[in-house]
């Protein structure tokens, strides 16, 4: 398929929607009843396996409960504790830092990479390069954690490389140092998410008519000008998708922290999802754990809604 054809297809895609609206306008009543019937089986399924457990979780979050014996009603006590307990509020602050490393950083890097790859037009081995950059997405998070633990180790790859370049003073136990542990964990996320963002952006760029780039270049636009005036505006849809996925990934971070630091040193890398696990399964505070889970869910919902707000209306 040529770029023009692809672009043409992209432009015609809103078509069927428009037709649908027109068609339903003619017979609105009949559609309503039938639609409910079609939706019913799926709704029963969702109600039983999603809505009911969510309701149950909300209910449990109002109790002090060890998981087996009779629970004690505490009202919003758990929620009050969640926002006042420094150990818990701290974990939410950590996750905010992780959003920078999981979402902002990879998106910026992937944008620059995508623009470079686009300019390099027919780069040899571009496919291989993309595959390599995307690879971390396919690896299990626990494996990624183990790999990075060895990279960050006192005699690991990172410190070895630093010593080779005569930067021995900069070496440290990255995951064991209070000031570097959280950024070190964050950079693992950056490494993982770059691939996802890059693939999304390259797909987006491939849908921009080539003439636009050519026209921009004829008008004397450089790399940055082209990025901001042509590429970026056309990438709003993939950007919002990338932002949603990476921000959610940051908020639900558990496995990487669990494997690399276990929340340490001290409490410098605790995150809410880790607290949920720890509270429920190690401390036997199921009510409190559920409360953090609910807060996290609401947070994810709010942030994704916010991201959808900035996305172009017709693309999502």
């Amino acid at each position: 398929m040529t770029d023009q054809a692809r672009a043409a297809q992209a432009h015609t895609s809103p078509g069927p929607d428009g037709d649908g609206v027109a068609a339903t306008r003619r017979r609105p009543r009949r559609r309503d009843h039938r639609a409910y019937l079609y939706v019913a089986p799926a709704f029963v399924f969702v109600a039983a396996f999603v809505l009911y457990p969510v309701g149950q979780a909300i209910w449990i979050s109002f109790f002090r409960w060890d998981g087996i014996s009779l629970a004690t009603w505490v009202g919003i006590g758990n929620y009050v504790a969640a926002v006042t307990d420094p150990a818990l509020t701290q974990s939410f602050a950590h996750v905010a830092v992780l959003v920078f490393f999981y979402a902002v950083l990879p998106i910026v890097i992937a944008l620059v990479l995508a623009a470079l790859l686009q300019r390099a037009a027919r780069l040899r081995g571009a496919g291989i390069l993309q595959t390599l950059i995307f690879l971390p997405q396919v690896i299990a998070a626990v494996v990624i954690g183990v790999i990075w633990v060895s990279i960050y180790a006192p005699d690991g790859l990172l410190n070895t490389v630093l010593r080779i370049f005569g930067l021995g003073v900069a070496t440290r136990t990255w995951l064991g140092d209070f000031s570097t542990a959280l950024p070190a964990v964050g950079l693992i996320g950056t490494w993982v998410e770059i691939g996802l963002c890059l693939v999304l952006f390259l797909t987006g760029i491939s849908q921009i008519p080539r003439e636009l780039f050519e026209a921009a270049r004829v008008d004397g636009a450089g790399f940055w000008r082209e990025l901001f005036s042509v590429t970026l505006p056309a990438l709003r849809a993939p950007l919002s998708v990338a932002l949603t996925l990476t921000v959610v990934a940051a908020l639900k971070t558990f496995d990487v922290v669990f494997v690399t630091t276990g929340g340490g040193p001290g409490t410098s890398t605790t995150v809410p999802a880790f607290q949920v696990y720890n509270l429920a399964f190690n401390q036997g505070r199921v009510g409190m754990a559920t409360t953090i889970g609910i807060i996290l869910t609401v947070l994810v919902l709010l942030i994704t809604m916010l991201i959808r707000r900035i996305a172009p209306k017709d693309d999502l």
Partner: protein
Amino acid sequence: MHTKHTMKWSAALAAVAATAMLLAGCTPGSGQSSSGSTDKPTKITTDVASLGKLTLTVWDQETTPGISTSLDDLNKQFEAKYPNVHIDRVVRSGSDLRTTLKLALSSSTPPDVIQANQGFADMAAYVKAGLLTDLGPYASRYGWTKRFPSSQRALDSVTPDGSKLGSGNLYGLSITGEMVGTFYNKKVLDSVGLPVPKSMEELEADLPKIKAKGILPIAFGDQDKSPAVHLLGIALMPQLGQKAASQLIFHQAGTFDSPSVHTAADLLAGWATKGYVTPGFNGVNSNTAATAFGQGKAAFFLGGVWNQDAIQKAGAGDSGAGFTVLPQKAGDPLVAMGGVGMGWAIPARSKKKDAAAAYIDFISSAKGMTTLEKNNQLPAVPSADAKAEEGTLTNDILSTWSRLTKDNGLVAYMDWSTPTFYDTIVSNVQSLMGGTENTAAFTKALQADYSGFGGGN
């Protein structure tokens, strides 16, 4: 528009679901009977042969070869002794057992014998929910109180309301032991010209001498956090002695804002600043530290006996390293933090309690202990003639454990004090040794958690 519409719908549905739950009005856990008193057996039969043909379902989590073989062996012996009994052994890994056990215990057909993990999150929670049988009557009938020292039985004891550990009724019986102590590398000590220390005081005096020779005194890795509890215990327990330490941990007397705790905290902080422990220890895995010690890169390794395998495989071999528990002053009675394996317990709803108790009696008998010894396990109470090859690490561990058992010197892990104490200790030890917290703040944080504990969950 369309998006907003669905959003509203899902919000409404969630609200409906929540209201449904509210209307149902079922308090989580209300399906349980919470009567702990009815679980006491009244008439006890020790004659298993008279119980007729029966199948005993046993759930355990001993997946490691040595102990698993021992249990298979003991099960066969039990079946041979009582041909009317068939044992259905279900082995699950620790985490699997933990998650399914809560459900299994509350079903109407639970297993007949289980292994319960001690502590607030597990054993105490089961007791509080009335799911375990009080083994007291069986203990006096079978003489378990004489078989196991009180320091060991305390570890399997919980008050009937699940609020306190270390006292109350006996709900489990453990057949293996473990302890935390001092490993020393014989070759490294020889090269520095130092004898094996006999007390904490001697150990402290040795550290600068070893450091001066350019050798790392103590291999220590705390990335996995649990070593923090063990190291603090090694520094603190000898100062307190078994009785005071046990009273402190089980909330009977004492405080964490005491001179002993201050001294122990100062000691750990000092080891970190003086470079007596592995650099960057907060980011070093405990297994890595044990391996480095086994390779002869450090003179000491302070930790649990479960590190034996890593140390031997790293290069220390069977006899390159030794193990001991150090008292504060040479000659003091031994005291060490440690534990016993998971407690063998009988679910309250089991219908074959007498047979189950007979089974627990059998595996914890002298025969059980020798079977464990044969398979290189550390039995809770080593037999009188228990001995491994002289000069081996295995023999050191076995003889130290025997002495500790004789001195009744076992103390529970410090984190048993409160449900949150593990997290409090490990994060504060990392901060203390990492230099971001001073001794005063350290003891204050520990005491705040300790004194804020109201009992149970």
